[in-house]
């Protein structure tokens, strides 16, 4: 799907990992281009860390081939892969000062002393933490420590930086700041980054490309826009953004165009990306922001009663309880002088048929 013209920094060919009785990762093919910012997104236990650790060489693959920067690295020891990694708990050396921590990878590379001083100084300036050079990590805040551990990676120009939920331990506001800072560093330095998170907003904000993982497999990959607007499965649709899903049976309408017969009515649907047989179970996805509350309503709509309306700043979310007991979410822009329908009032939640998206029904179980 994604056309990568740049040369590959990492190539996984049928790489899998099996522990005694769990398939942590089923055979996976994945290519990361030079300079790309790729995010592994998925629920806990979906194999994100396993994939990262396979690339870092911390675990050996059960099958497949790993190529890093054009070189077969499948059995290469971790310390010869030339990578950088940022952990959730920072992993700074407690017995070293900030300066010594950042100097460590350079000392390992036998960089001359004067140059070490210059390069450490430069990255400390880059992250604006020059004033803490002589402190110990534990004297710093979580956000500062994570910036130091980022600086420790950047300082030796690794081919690829791996990050395993690096912002997981920070509060929301700091997390958003750091997201922008990491993006800035990525843009300025052009380093390839592979980022792991279970937070969809983080993935949408930061990535050139998102690789969505589910149960040790790649569920779908693509740009944030693709994953948001063109999910291919119910799992993708539900994991990224919020979604209204109507389950039904695909049929041919009076004019031969496809329609979905559901418990709430029969609706015209756009053609799916991959053909779905007539008569098969399918699901219609409509994003809440593509729905409106209509008082009359002659377009496509479902009817129900307002259960609740909540204000989220710039937008309002209405929860509409339908006849079959399901709840439809309608999201509208907030405006001065807005008048909400009263609780319990009958309303119609409508959408434009072309904003719907037809998905195959998820496998049973």
């Amino acid at each position, binding site marked *: 799907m994604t056309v990568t013209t740049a040369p590959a920094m990492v190539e996984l060919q049928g790489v899998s990992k099996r522990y005694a009785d769990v398939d942590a990762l089923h055979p996976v093919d994945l290519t990361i281009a030079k300079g790309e910012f790729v995010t592994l997104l998925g629920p806990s236990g979906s194999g994100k860390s396993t994939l990262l650790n396979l690339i*870092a060489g*911390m675990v050996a693959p059960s099958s497949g081939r790993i190529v890093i920067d054009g070189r077969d690295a499948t059995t290469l*020891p*971790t*310390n*010869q*892969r*030339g*990578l*950088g*990694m940022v*952990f959730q*708990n920072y*992993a700074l*050396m*407690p*017995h070293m000062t900030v300066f010594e921590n950042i100097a*460590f*990878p350079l000392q*390992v*590379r036998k960089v001359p002393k004067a140059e070490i001083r210059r390069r450490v100084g430069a990255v400390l300036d880059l992250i604006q933490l020059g004033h803490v050079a002589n402190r110990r990590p534990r004297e710093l805040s979580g956000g500062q420590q994570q910036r130091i551990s980022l600086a*420790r990676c950047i300082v*030796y120009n690794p081919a690829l930086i*791996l990050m395993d939920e690096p912002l997981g331990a920070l509060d929301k506001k700091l997390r958003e700041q750091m997201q922008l800072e990491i993006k800035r560093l990525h843009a300025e330095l052009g380093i390839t980054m592979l980022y792991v998170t279970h937070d969809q907003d983080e993935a949408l904000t930061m990535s050139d490309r998102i690789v969505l993982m589910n149960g040790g497999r790649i569920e779908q990959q693509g740009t944030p826009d693709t994953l948001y607007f063109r999910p291919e499965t119910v799992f993708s649709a539900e994991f990224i953004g919020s979604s209204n899903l109507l389950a039904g049976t695909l049929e041919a309408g009076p004019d031969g165009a496809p329609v979905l017969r559901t418990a709430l009515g029969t609706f015209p649907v756009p053609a799916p990306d991959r053909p779905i047989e007539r008569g098969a179970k399918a699901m219609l996805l409509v994003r809440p922001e593509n729905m409106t509350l209509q008082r009359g309503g002659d377009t496509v709509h479902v009817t129900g009663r307002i259960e609740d309306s909540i204000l989220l700043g710039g937008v309002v979310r209405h929860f509409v309880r339908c006849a079959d007991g399901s709840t439809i979410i309608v999201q509208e822009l907030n405006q001065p002088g807005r008048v909400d329908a009263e609780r319990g009032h009958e309303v119609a939640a409508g959408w434009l048929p072309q904003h719907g998206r037809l998905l195959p029904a998820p496998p049973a179980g």
Partner: protein
Amino acid sequence: MNELFGSSRAARRITSTLAWLCYLFLLVPSLIVIPISFGNPGQIEFPPRQLTLDLYRQFFTDPAWWGSMVQSLLVAVATTLLTLLLAVPAAYALARSRLPGRRGLQGLFMMPMLVPVIVLGLGLYLQFSSWGLLDTTAGIILAHIMLTTPYIMVSVLSGLKHSDIALETVAAIMGASRVTIFFRVVLPQLKAAIAVGALFAFLMSLDEVVVAYFLTGTQTMTLPVKMFSSIRWELTPVLAAVSTLLTVLSLLIALGIIALQRKTEASS
């Protein structure tokens, strides 16, 4: 909340009082020698009728006593250093390797802890006599290394359990070799655990009498052996002075161990 806090504090006070009573009970016999050591050099008496330093003077001027003290210190220092060289890397390798025979190997290192010392002494005596190691300083050091290795291993292994393995991982990713990681990442984190183990080993070697009794002779006699034989043959009051010196040394080392353990607890 308040009450809970209060009662737990009371409970803690009771336990610590009990603990101190136990210590005292254990210590009193050793403490009794202290006043005796400042007494009359002619005979052992408690309480002493006059206070003098004569017994200490005797100890430090008699080459037999003084020499065995130097021998003991030499053996203890050598034992400690050599055991560290052996046990610290061994513990690290055991803790971090994925060898299938790991557990068995660990058990092997711990064996000397389980075998009764007297049996060990006899075994070593028979073995060393055929190797010509009886009555040699190297022989007694070798035996003490065997005895102290498990203790340093235990101390280092528990230190490794508390050390953060992510630091070693991140160092490897940054390109560091196993050796660099050991010296620059692992050792600094183990400083306290190693110091505790070392003090413990030093104390054990200094105090050890059973194995030393089997293996040393007139040339290589350590202080505890000299004390033991002097109890049997002459029962001189100099013993009180020696005991006092040993007690003070042991106490200092024990305090050092406690202080180190406090420090590591506070920092982790």
